């Protein structure tokens, strides 16, 4: 019933005596046909085309019965069916019928308009009609698929859907999409490997790109990693050239320690406000601009030496100290210090030691910058799931239980221990290390993540390799449920680690207890392959923690009007056929913000997003769906209620012939109908969803086709 209602609200019936038919071929490109009252004498002639979709539809309903019924619907001039309406011959059937039967409107009863509305609009256009004279009746997703075992019911429902669609098609008008100019610039939010790759691709394609990063340096998660699987490249070695390229690219305007504060506009013309967080340190360029000769931060680090405030370094997951004025690691881009104003005591020692460079400004305030871009890419990345929530594994309770990200820093030559893996409790070198896979992933308890985090299996294999390589005699025990080595050369890597001496125990870790005297850990699990419980005493436990979206992702996505799925990952337009796009035109997704990905997949997705984001920019203009609202000025009382209701700020009151009337900025209007539904005077005409069209649909449904 709910589906029926939905259909009713969208489609319409035609046995109203008034015909809102505009001339089939209107020449004026400027204005869509005049709204109310522009009835024409032309008789509606609707063609109905029923798709079998193989057996998807034909298998669940009586197509001949539906076809016979359709012939009896008022205004229907022609009915046909075909095995696959979307195929070239199927489209040919529509094309031919429009010409031979002199149709004024087309109804295709098939799948969801999300899938094939564009296809059939094109077919309608090729037949010589305005493409907006096409209406779709969904008899697959909302009918045959859900009523697979009710042949009779689905046949009747298909008849209803077609009758309702014909009602609307009889009243459809010619519409002409608006073209808007696209700003020759793009924005990328997040400068991890995804954001950097997307920005480099856009910049190399000749597009001015604003790269916005909330932390002081670019590089993201990948810069925290020691090595990458399965090639064992040093992560920094392959990433820093890209970081340097980003820093140098003339087309990239890098905005680190900055956040998107507000977004207005639409595809082609996004006005984005960036908050540049108070950094307290000026660049050399800014120094020059302020007339300080040789001034600005050159990264010498004299300030850091004298700063008396010590804080944990976030980049080293808190395992190394930093000062209140800091860079997180030696390879930061840009090489520019940052003051943590939450801990700075403003003693002024850094200002003194900086001296003539005058790079430090302890009174700095947040600044707001406005930029205009045509398209935007979100690449906001991921964070580690707070695995201490799974209390049975003792993270943050037992010193020698660490996360995989902490392990990366501990094994990394530039990390807090210079690459010597140690037990946090006593600094000893571990001889037995347990890896807990799916630590918080594949967990339906509500106290974990239901999805697979996808790259933990592979990096745990890599961790096993690293300890075998670095610590002679050290044995890695990997407690796993399944080893998901899905990528190119990944299964081969699994083979290699087993050959090198990694011990794989198929069983999820039930709990971990610490021996208080030695701080060793007892790992309890079921060796499911041996069918025996195991108590494994180890020196160190590494939890391959699940991943989750960054905390700020939700705020950012709302600014850009992007949806997210139940688990918080940003929602793509189509999981298979449009994985980089979103439901907001002009906004794209790159990397892990869309769902867990390893580095190769992240880079591929970033290149895909950059390519998609560059298309409208290179085309120079985009067509907007002509579903905007229009004001019927003689009915408008100028009350202005609609102006306040519009969620897209598309409406305004203007003076015309001595009185106030509403005016629509068509490019901003999304056709949501909020104003049209509210207007007390009925003065707003919603193109393609006009009141007479919707009323006709409701009548068609309620009256069951009776006159």
């Amino acid at each position, binding site marked *: 019933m709910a589906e029926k209602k939905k259909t009713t609200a969208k489609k319409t019936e035609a046995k109203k005596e008034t015909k809102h038919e505009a001339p089939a071929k209107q020449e004026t490109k400027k204005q869509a046909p005049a709204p109310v009252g522009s009835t024409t004498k032309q008789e509606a002639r609707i063609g109905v085309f029923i798709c079998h979709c193989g057996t998807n539809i034909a298998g669940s309903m009586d197509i001949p019965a539906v076809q016979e019924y359709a012939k009896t619907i008022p205004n229907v001039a022609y009915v046909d069916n075909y095995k696959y309406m979307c195929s070239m011959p199927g489209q040919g059937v529509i094309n031919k019928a429009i010409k031979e039967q002199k149709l004024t409107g087309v109804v295709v009863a098939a799948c969801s308009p999300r899938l094939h509305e564009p296809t059939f609009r094109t077919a309608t256009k090729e037949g010589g009609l305005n493409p907006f004279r096409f209406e779709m009746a969904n008899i697959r997703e909302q009918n045959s698929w859900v009523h697979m075992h009710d042949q009779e019911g689905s046949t009747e429902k298909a008849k209803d859907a077609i009758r309702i669609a014909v009602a609307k098609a009889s009243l459809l008008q010619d519409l002409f999409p608006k073209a808007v100019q696209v700003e020759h610039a793009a924005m990328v939010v997040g400068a991890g490997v995804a954001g950097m790759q997307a920005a480099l691709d856009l910049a190399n394609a000749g597009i001015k790109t604003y790269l916005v990063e909330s932390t002081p340096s670019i590089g993201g998660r990948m810069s925290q990693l020691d090595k990458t699987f399965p090639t064992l490249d040093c992560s920094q070695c392959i990433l820093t050239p890209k970081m340097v390229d980003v820093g140098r690219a003339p087309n990239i305007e890098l905005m680190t320690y900055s956040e998107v504060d507000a977004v207005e506009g639409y595809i082609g013309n996004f006005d984005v406000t960036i908050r540049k967080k108070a950094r307290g340190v000026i660049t050399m360029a800014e120094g020059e601009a302020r007339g300080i000769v040789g001034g600005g931060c050159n990264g010498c680090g004299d300030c850091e030496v004298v700063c008396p405030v010590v804080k944990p370094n976030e980049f080293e997951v808190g395992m190394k100290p930093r000062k209140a004025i800091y860079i997180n690691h030696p390879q930061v881009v840009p090489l520019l210090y940052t003051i943590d104003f939450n801990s700075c005591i403003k003693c002024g020692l850094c200002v003194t030691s900086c001296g003539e460079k005058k790079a430090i400004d302890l009174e700095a305030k947040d600044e707001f910058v406005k930029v205009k871009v045509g398209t935007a890419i979100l690449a906001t990345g991921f964070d580690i799931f707070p695995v201490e929530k799974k209390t049975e594994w003792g993270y943050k309770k037992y010193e020698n239980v660490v996360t995989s990200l902490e392990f990366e820093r501990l094994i990394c030559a530039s990390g807090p221990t210079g690459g010597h893996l140690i037990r946090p409790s006593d600094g000893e070198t571990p001889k037995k290390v347990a890896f807990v896979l799916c630590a918080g992933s594949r967990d339906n308890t509500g106290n974990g993540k239901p999805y697979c985090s996808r790259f933990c299996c592979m990096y745990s294999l890599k961790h096993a390799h690293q300890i075998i390589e670095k610590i002679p005699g050290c044995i890695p025990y990997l407690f796993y449920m399944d080893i998901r080595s899905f990528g190119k050369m990944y299964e081969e890597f699994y083979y290699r680690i087993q050959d090198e001496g990694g011990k794989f125990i198929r*069983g999820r870790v*039930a709990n971990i207890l610490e021996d208080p005297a030695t701080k060793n850990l007892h790992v309890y699990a079921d060796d499911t392959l041996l069918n025996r419980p195991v108590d494994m005493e180890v020196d160190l436990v590494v939890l391959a923690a699940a991943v989750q979206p960054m905390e700020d992702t939700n705020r950012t996505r709302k600014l850009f009007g992007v949806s997210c799925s139940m688990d918080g990952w940003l929602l793509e337009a189509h999981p298979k056929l449009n994985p980089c796009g979103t439901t907001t035109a002009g906004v794209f997704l790159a990397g892990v913000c869309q769902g867990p990905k390893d580095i190769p997949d992240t880079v591929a997705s970033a290149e895909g997003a950059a390519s998609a984001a560059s298309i409208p920019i290179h085309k120079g203009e985009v067509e907007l769906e002509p579903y905007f609202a229009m004001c019927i000025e003689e009915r408008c009382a100028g009350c202005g209620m609609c102006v306040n209701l519009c969620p897209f700020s598309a409406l305004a009151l203007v003076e015309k012939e001595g009185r106030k009337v509403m005016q629509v900025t068509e490019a901003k209007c999304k056709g949501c109908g909020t104003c049209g539904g509210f207007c007390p005077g009925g003065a707003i005409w919603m193109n393609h969803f006009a009141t007479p069209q919707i009323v006709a649909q409701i009548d068609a449904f309620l009256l069951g086709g009776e006159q």
Partner: protein
Amino acid sequence: MVRTKGYPEALEKKLHDQRYYSEDSNPEFTKNVKGISRTIAHMCYQCGTCTGSCPSAPRSTYRIRKFMRRAVLGLENESLTDPDLWLCTTCYSCTDRCPRDIAPTDVIMAMRNLAFKRDIIPVNFLKTVQAIYSSGHGVPNNDVNRAARERLGLTRDPPTTHMYPEYMPGIRKIIDHYKLKANADRIVKEREG
């Protein structure tokens, strides 16, 4: 369905056909277990967290994971006739930790219910029923306990049916309603004469 090859007894036992067959699997059993246990018994992915958490597993042949597997596959006879079914202490550690949010303990309880319908139950469980029927306690108080309680400054009997025997008829009424005592007496008599 025993398929052997006619070896001497000890060897024959070892050389039993170890396979299970599609006819061993009863989908109704999975449904019944789900219905009684009120948990998603068919969703187990065999990670072993339950057995790893089980206090019984390290010191017995009881493997809760094995019963979960049998529930998924509907291996009814194998589940109900395995004496290990009665080694669960119902501590609920597995239920606390199961990542699929299943309650394995309740699956065991459901299987015990179904086994009892076929008179499959160890006598000690029936003796517990009889003890509760006569005293309100599975493990009634005794003189050693009473002395210990006195030393600790407690009453000789706890504030239960031991102290308030007037509540015993109510308890017996509940047990009788389910014919638990009658069935227990009958089975004990059959087994012990």
